[in-house]
């Protein structure tokens, strides 16, 4: 019984923490990841993220193909035409507030665009760019 309460409160605390996540938290976690291998690392670059977002990386698509040239706007899945809500947090408050979702789509979308996983630095740069986009 006591264990159950413990589990329950832990779960509640965890879900509370998950919903309180902000794009800044996601970025800090990525920064910590980069620092672990590169102690000289200072900060992510929105400019580099901007370039990565709009460029193609060996495949047919860029991030902009589905998330539009200006990620404050609604996008569209390039194959199925299903609408995609804006990717920039300033235009869509739900973005980068759920770590599992962020991880899942970085993995999928980097594979789609670059045929490989993105590095922590690339993800941080992309996030810095997306956070700099104003609607």
């Amino acid at each position, binding site marked *: 019984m006591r264990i159950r309460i413990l589990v329950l409160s832990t779960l509640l605390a965890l879900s509370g923490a998950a919903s309180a996540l902000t794009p800044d938290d996601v970025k800090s976690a990525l920064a910590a990841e980069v620092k672990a291998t590169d102690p000289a690392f200072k900060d992510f670059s929105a400019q580099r993220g901007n370039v990565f977002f709009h460029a193609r990386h060996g495949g047919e698509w860029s991030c902009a193909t589905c998330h539009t040239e200006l990620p404050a706007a609604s996008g569209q*899945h390039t*194959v*199925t*035409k*299903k609408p995609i809500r804006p990717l920039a947090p300033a235009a869509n408050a739900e973005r980068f507030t759920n770590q599992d979702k962020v991880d899942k789509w970085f*993995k*999928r*979308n980097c*594979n*789609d665009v670059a045929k490989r996983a993105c590095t922590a630095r690339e993800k941080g740069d992309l996030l810095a760019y997306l956070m700099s986009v104003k609607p």
Partner: protein
Amino acid sequence: MKTFIRSISRGLPRGSDVGVSKGASTLWSRAGSIARPRSPFNLESLRTAALMTGTALVAALFMAEAAHADGKRFGPYPDVYTQECASCHVAYPPELMTKKGWATITSTLDKHFGTDASVDAKTRAALDGFLASRAATRERNAPSEPSARLTRTAWFASEHGSTPPAKTSFANCAACHTQAEKNDYSERGIKVPTK
């Protein structure tokens, strides 16, 4: 009587109005010819008539039920299905393909028609369970090629032909089924774009 109903149900392809009326005409013509009494007070034929009326009633009820579940309104779906399978396209109704077809889809999600749609093992198990519980059982809903495209099943081809309307793809149900986002594929909502 069981085989009778079964034969009607076989004539009822899901998602097709034509099938419903086909079933109906078979039923009424047969009931008419057998139920007609040979002489006014022949007990045997009265019993037959009663039996046939019963059959007709049961069949009518069955058809009403089948017409309701005519495959044009689907869902609701569990969150895991909408989250994982309706982010890039509408939630394709699990009822439209066989369990084997869906198993092919979920076992190849890392290479899902040109995109990475991979899920973790726990999520995949949940999806498999759900898809299996609603999957089609008819041969016409079985995949016809190795990648198990729902849009290449015999059922899909018989409903839609082999060429999508201009400037759209069969993957985009909502291009013509205007209520597809609400899992509603009824005739009323169909509007085929002309260009």
